[in-house]
């Protein structure tokens, strides 16, 4: 993620709140509710409607659930989960970071839904959901250091801007 300097431009449809929000929390399923509550409240304050807030909460839950389930070995008591929300005038960015073993995102096949349902598989829907719920989903994997998934929602006014296209290319 680039650290773009904040441009204070008055936009037709602007977030009600800008800035950076960071949460570091033990990587345990019993913290999922806390995480959703926090992320949902920030999204609500930013000005997203209830349906969008729900989508952001769910996408965040799926990313965090993956960290909790897949990133660390079971007996690692020091495992943490970092959630960073960055809001600027053009987009809402949610970054979930772990310091675990990582994985190769290219090896993950995004399921063909029809085939998936026909095969009655369990699991493997998390990343698909994240990509469906958010505008952009990008992985940056550095095993043992930090593994990040960056999920973005663009504000309507920034939808067709050059900056948005730039964001997509990353």
């Amino acid at each position, binding site marked *: 993620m680039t650290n773009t300097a904040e441009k204070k431009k008055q936009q037709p449809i602007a977030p009600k709140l800008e800035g950076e929000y960071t949460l570091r929390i033990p990587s345990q*399923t*019993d913290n*999922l*509710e806390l995480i959703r509550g926090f992320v949902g409240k920030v999204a609500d304050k930013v000005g997203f409607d209830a349906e969008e807030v*729900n989508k952001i909460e769910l996408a965040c839950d799926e990313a965090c659930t993956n960290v909790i389930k897949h990133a660390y070995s079971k007996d690692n008591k020091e495992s943490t989960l970092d959630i960073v929300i960055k809001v600027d005038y053009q987009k809402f960015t949610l970054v979930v970071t772990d310091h675990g073993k990582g994985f190769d995102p290219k090896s993950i096949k995004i399921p063909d839904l029809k085939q998936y*349902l026909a095969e*009655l598989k369990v699991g493997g829907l998390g990343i698909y959901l994240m990509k469906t719920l958010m505008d952009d989903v990008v992985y940056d994997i550095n095993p043992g250091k930090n593994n990040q998934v960056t999920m973005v929602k663009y504000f309507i006014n920034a939808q067709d801007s050059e900056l948005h296209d730039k964001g997509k290319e990353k």
Partner: protein
Amino acid sequence: MENFTINREEKGGIAVLYIGGFLDAHTAPELESAIQKIIDTEQFKILVNFKELSYISSAGLGVFMGFIENIRNHDGDIKMSDMTPKIFRVFDLLGFPTLYDIVDTEEEAIEKFNS
């Protein structure tokens, strides 16, 4: 603070599960063991009433995927009723309405089981 609740009732040979609160990776094992218990008694007609459920993630959806094949092989089914629009939207996003019988009311589901 109870973050997930589950209650079971019997309605004419159908096991009805009332689920409420948050169904996520933390609470999914509770639903899993409740359904497993029903199957252990050789009962395969299950109705899940979602009325009080306020949240579901893919971990919750996965529970149903894990049982449906076995249940249908025993001439049973998992039917679902009383979803709020918020919950239905998640099912819909994944195309689950083509796979599961999702109806508005418990009565409708029971009728379908009996027809």
